């Protein structure tokens, strides 16, 4: 058994270097050459300023923006503290939180479910097309951009199922709001007050 103990220690040390340093550095090297944007998180820059990642959701509030889903990551969309709410189906705090989200919507129509539920990561960058279309009326009233224009904007931002089959259709909220901002800037008569509730 003593021989096996020596082998165990040597084996651990040598394979640790190969698998724990060599392998990840090899992948890092190839990734940097072949997929530089993906390897660093598909970061979005605007006028030289880092404004976020295409893959990581951001919080939006008020009437002038399309809203993301509720988030349980840190104080909301904290991309250094990913988390779901972990509230169970019979949790009173969960049922009350959803009821409050529903009542804060100003239309009578039922709210699409993803818009009032928190994602597993707390960083979901997407909402469903239903949730985006649901918000068109509110954003239109606040910004003065015609509903028809906004509907076309949403339609242009729908990511279809991958390979026509995989996953669910979705709308990236950060990209949608960035383009919404460009639309508003082209209409100088619209006030772009960044009000918070």
């Amino acid at each position, binding site marked *: 058994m003593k021989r096996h103990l020596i*082998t165990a220690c040597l084996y651990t040390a040598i394979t640790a270097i190969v698998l724990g340093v060599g392998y*990840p550095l090899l992948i890092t090297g190839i990734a940097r050459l072949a997929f530089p944007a*993906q390897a660093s998180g598909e970061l979005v820059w605007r006028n030289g300023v880092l404004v*976020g990642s295409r893959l990581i959701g951001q919080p939006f509030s008020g009437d002038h923006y399309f809203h993301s889903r509720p988030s349980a990551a840190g104080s909301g969309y904290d991309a250094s503290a990913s988390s779901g709410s972990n509230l169970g189906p019979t949790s009173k705090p969960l049922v009350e939180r959803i009821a409050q989200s529903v009542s804060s919507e100003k239309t009578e129509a039922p709210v699409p*479910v993803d818009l009032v539920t*928190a994602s*597993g990561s707390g960083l979901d960058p997407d909402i469903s097309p239903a949730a985006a279309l649901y918000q068109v009326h509110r954003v239109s009233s606040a910004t003065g951009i015609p509903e028809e224009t906004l509907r076309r904007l949403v339609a242009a931002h729908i990511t279809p199922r991958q390979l026509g089959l995989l996953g669910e259709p979705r709308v990236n909220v950060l990209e949608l709001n960035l383009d919404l901002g460009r639309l508003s800037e082209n209409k100088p008569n619209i006030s772009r007050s960044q009000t918070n509730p």
Partner: protein
Amino acid sequence: MTVNGWLQIAVFFALVLLTTKPLGKYMARVFEGRRTLLDPILVPVERLLYRMTGVQREDEMRWTEYGGAMLLFSLATMLLTYVIERAQHILPWNPQHLAGVTPALAWNTAVSFTTNTNWQSYVPEQTMSYLTQMLGLATHNFWSAATGIALAVAFIRGIARREMKTLGNFWVDLTRATLWVLLPISIVLALVLVSQGVIQNLRPYATAQILQPQTQTTTGPDGKPATATISTQTIAQGPAASQEAIKMLGTNGGGFFNANSAHPFENPTPFSNLLEMFAIFLIPAGLTATLGEMTGSPRHGWAVFAAMALLWFAGVFTCYWAESQPSPLVHGVEQRASLNQAGGNMEGKEVRFGIANSALFATVTTDASCGAVNSAHDSFTPLGGMVPMVNILLGEIVFGGVGAGLYGMLIFVIISVFIAGLMVGRTPEYLGKKIEAYDVQLAMLYLLIFPLIILCLSAISVLSPGFGLSALTNQGPHGLSEIFYAYTSATGNNGSAFAGLSANTRWYNITLGIAMFFGRFLMIVPMLAVAGNLVTKRRAPASVGTFPVTTPLFTALLTSVILIVGALTFVPALSLGPVLEHLMMHAGQVF
């Protein structure tokens, strides 16, 4: 449930079905030392490694020596991880200057990764440096997976060899599992995952100026409301893809980030999601074909595969159905599926995955002992959340963890042929070998250790308001489910969680560590002893009285035995947890 959802599930299963035979045959070649395509590159590396570590590749080991070498190796790797965690603040590749890990958490994590559990009591992006993740944790994803494969191969040899005493050489099996199977597939998978957007770098966390700064009102410690404006977002970075690939392939499941495979940087697209689920089943499914190949009975391999596939389908059907149901407790919400939304229970789920992929992932990750999650199991409907729980309670033998799933299943096979033997009144045989009292006693020991650990530790926690119940996020029957799931997951070496349980306390870190340790190593001992006993037996020719292990009848018997053993053991606990919660939810009760 939608047509598209079922199509996606069918595509996943077709992939598994297509790769089982070629991969299984390849692994049989690797472990029988026959020639493979990769030999020209890998044989020199293998020889060098044996020379440096003093391995004599011709040395054959009895089951006791094989098990001893395995335990010593596990101990050495566990200590290394403990030391790295405790000392990470003075080691390189720690751009966020994270502090050393506390002793109880370091113990829990070291055990967790050594046992292929990957239970995580911590938030990785706020606790573990890049070096700890790469050198302390991702290495275990290789080591523990290769150990599992080695053990399964040793067990297969126990069945296949006749009148011998030895099961193979642990170091050789470990090396060949790593170099020929895990490493090449991981390299390819990691790069494909990067192409989809899984990050891979060593940079410090990025700080973004968010588009719309948010004003937040919080209640301070003095009870007065305080407002704060949040205008930046700190975006965690790191070498995630290299760890992600082996995390899935080795059925480890320990996330680079807290949200695991729900995190967009670990699992950015539906295609990456499909690959990650496929990687979980790839090797365990292949091993059923390896079993058939090495025992000379490919049809027996397929009969075992069929029992696994049946149980997988039952799980995914139940979970997908349950998660598609609208909650009776919320009002004014559109919960139906349509062309524009997935509908159903979206709490804890990502829009890009919807209901079908979340339910499938939850089923697959607990069928195997993976424990990665792409949605929050804690927020599943009561019956939907019961599926992952039951999958682990059945022993994770539905394809199962790499290696561990197959030897767990073979224990059930021994019980099944024993019961078949009792029914016809003959000495039971398994592939020509007589199954005797000693084998059945050890197989039953293997089956009894598991519920004993889970039920005892759950019972103590449930009865202890101070250290047991205080960690709960949810009350009522769901609280019981959280604790029960934690010990189930730890003992089963799964690692997924009803994550509302705040398990980073002394009580949970230490007891869950014990559960993981015994759930792996205490069960390996009787398993190896069975193999060590079987290998000495001679092979009797099949007669008309032999119960064939290659037929649908055998598959049906095996499936029934698994379900009956599981049901007899765990129905009381399940009734008080998820079943009671389901009934109360429909009665309109909240907690």
